[in-house]
């Protein structure tokens, strides 16, 4: 029992450490270090040695002093056995090993005697690995997006894996792509159009959705159940089946190439989910409050303005943020309806940039950063509201 768990601990933890070191090495390659071999086997042996030392020393020693000395020793050994590398790379290795040995703190021979310990250990390292995996897989494209926008096309073509930013250049040189897309490609105008469309969609949607949601939530009328089920069904129909008839009708009415046309379409496509989310919240408001309002002589309009809206601000906030996100990110309708650069939204403008194969990729990525950054900042700041909007909007509808 003890032997088995010992073996599993050694293997799981050393494989974990090796993978982390390899990832660090790959990331370092992207900063211009010329490694061509991961030396996986050698690193695995090193890690195994490290884990064995840690487990057998156990708690016989002052913990902080122990991990510091062990990490230092192994970093030196690692640097000695691997290719030449700059100081910052070794510091990274040192920090990784420090973190790792700290994790190994509780693993001594005594601890490994518990029940189910091997499963627990595998689970623990799998979780640690999963954290690294998810963080890497998700953040890597965003990292590439930002870093590429600071490079130049020729440098990228010469050495596609060197993504380091040359900080010795002056600020104007580093941020050149951003200056170019605002000056030459008119991105300032697109930001304005996108903001106008998104905010407009939010306002009009709320204007239409709040009364409708109130009617669905509170009032009795013929066809109510039919209406509330059809809201969901309508939401399931995708934009792509609407696009051809809307395109023909909008062409004949002259609404194509106009921001107003986009506003109408965005509002209509987000209305069902907005009504759905709001009516759910309105139902949770106690009826007694409204009845008190009725006795005070309020009509329906007054009740909505003075009672319902102030009480359901959180729900309204999450609907607004969700609708804003949809309108800001929307691509299909802006692709179909907008041909004139004067009416482009940001998404459409970036798509237009790729239409010209000559456009250097750093401009494309700078544009991508410009369109991504606002929505991510809003998301991080208002996460609580947006998450509830996402949950309702994406799965129920």
């Amino acid at each position, binding site marked *: 029992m003890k032997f088995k768990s010992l073996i599993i601990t050694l293997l799981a933890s050393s494989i974990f450490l090796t993978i982390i070191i390899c990832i660090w090495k790959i990331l370092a390659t992207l900063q211009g270090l010329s490694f061509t071999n991961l030396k996986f086997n050698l690193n695995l042996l090193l890690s195994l040695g490290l884990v064995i030392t840690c487990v057998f020393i156990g708690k016989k020693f002052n913990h902080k002093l122990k991990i510091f000395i062990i990490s230092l020793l192994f970093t030196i050994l690692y640097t000695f056995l691997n290719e030449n590398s700059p100081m910052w790379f070794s510091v990274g290795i040192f920090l990784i090993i420090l973190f790792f040995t700290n994790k190994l703190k509780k693993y001594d021979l005594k601890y490994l005697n518990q029940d189910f310990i091997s499963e627990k250990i595998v689970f623990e390292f799998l979780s640690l690995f999963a954290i690294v995996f998810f963080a890497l897989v*998700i953040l890597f494209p965003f990292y590439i997006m930002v870093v590429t926008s600071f490079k130049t096309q020729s440098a990228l073509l010469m050495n596609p894996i060197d993504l380091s930013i040359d900080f010795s250049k002056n600020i104007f040189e580093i941020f050149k792509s951003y200056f170019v897309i605002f000056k030459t490609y008119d991105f300032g105008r697109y930001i304005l159009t996108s903001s106008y469309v998104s905010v407009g969609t939010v306002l009009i949607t709320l204007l239409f959705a709040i009364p409708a949601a109130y009617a669905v939530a509170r009032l009795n009328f013929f066809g109510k159940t039919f209406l509330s089920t059809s809201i969901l069904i309508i939401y399931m129909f995708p934009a792509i089946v609407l696009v051809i008839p809307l395109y023909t009708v909008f062409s004949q009415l002259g609404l194509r190439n106009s921001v107003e046309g986009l506003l109408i379409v965005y509002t209509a496509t987000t209305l069902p989910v907005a009504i759905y989310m709001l009516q759910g919240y309105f139902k949770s408001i106690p009826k007694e409050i409204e009845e008190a309002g009725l006795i005070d002589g309020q009509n329906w309009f007054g009740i909505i303005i003075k009672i319902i809206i102030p009480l359901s601000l959180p729900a309204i906030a999450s609907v607004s943020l969700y609708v804003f996100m949809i309108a800001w990110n929307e691509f299909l309708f802006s692709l179909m309806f907008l041909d004139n650069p004067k009416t482009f939204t940001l998404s459409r403008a970036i798509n237009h940039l790729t239409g010209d194969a000559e456009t250097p990729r750093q401009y494309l990525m700078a544009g991508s950063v410009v369109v991504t950054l606002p929505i991510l900042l809003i998301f991080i700041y208002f996460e609580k509201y947006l998450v509830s909007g996402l949950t309702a909007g994406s799965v129920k509808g």
Partner: protein
Amino acid sequence: MSSTLSKIEKRTAYTLLLPAVCLVFAIILFPIFANVWISFKEVGLKDIRIPEPRAKKIVKNIQDSNSELKIIYKLRNSSLIQDIREVKFSDKFPKNIEPVNLDKRCEFKSQKVKCFFGNWESGYRENFEIFVKDVNNNAINSKYIKSNKPDLNGKSNNILLTTDFTFKNFKNVFINNNFVELLMTTFYFTFFGTLGAILLGIFAAQLVNQKFYGRTFMRSILLFPYVGPVVALAYTWTLLLDPNSGTINSLLVNYGVIEKPINLLGQKYLIVNILGFELKLRLALTTVIFFEIWRYFPLAFLFILARLQAIPKDLYEAADVDGAGPFRKFFYITLPQITAILSILFMIRFIWNFNKFEDIFLLTGGASGTLTLPISVYQQGFAVSNIGMGSAVSIVIVLLLITFMIIYFKLIGKKANEI
């Protein structure tokens, strides 16, 4: 008393609902029905412009006389395909100015020249001339004359409103265009995209449900792929996967994993040799599916996490007492608790992925074996410029969607409301 109250209530309800219902009807329901209409017609992209009679006015001075002018109207039918019937023309002139030798088709009444040109066939062109002079032989202000725009109108058939129908579009969809392959690709994409997103969502949710340092930060990061705009993310991935100078290919070549760069988005098949069997892997499609999983697993994650957090803690405590390890806990407690949510999630994400357009369009544009039904709508309608075909494909999508929804409501509609 109560009946009047309920009447008022009804009326209020309808007033409150009316704007929203009208808008949704006009922009969502009407197009779905209009699709049926268009799909039975032979309509190209260029046919949807309504033909208009047009005139360009050119004013010329006549030598030796500034009291006379020659006005040329360059008349034309804007459409090269359709005729215009009963074209009427009118132009206004200032006081004291009268036309000389007016064309037979025209008459001059209360300072207006009115003409009836009759029918213009498609592509019709004519240079129509009018001479005018001032009655009192004063000089004419030619700029003022030019600033008056003539009015033209005529009747034409709007091809969308005629009643000629044809089955040609549907015949083309089902017979001529590799319909089976199209359908199979769509199902591969939808099924594996959904399955992958849910599996990854389970892992992520299980991870974030534990306590560790930086957990809230991790939760925010996990939602980034969904929150970011699809245009930016798709182009970033295209750059990353680029065979010539993409980071991923260059890294793999640098570390000797592959010898030559692989065109992950532009290569239809990857031939793999396993134990002597040649396996054909749909490479571009697989890549697109992975992007799809990457982008939409956050939604599965969010929903599963919400369910995980609602599982009572004492179930796990009891398992601890019984001496169950973490894997057993997952398979015997967590999994049974989330199966209901997983089935709902699968159905709904399936329907959504089935409709996905932007992701594939931006990554491959439907090339190298990634043509799905939604992309086909775009290709037929706007690349081949056959609106009728595009609509026919849309109808196929709508019919399939209705089938899925019926299955969904039959299988788990009731359960969904309980959760």
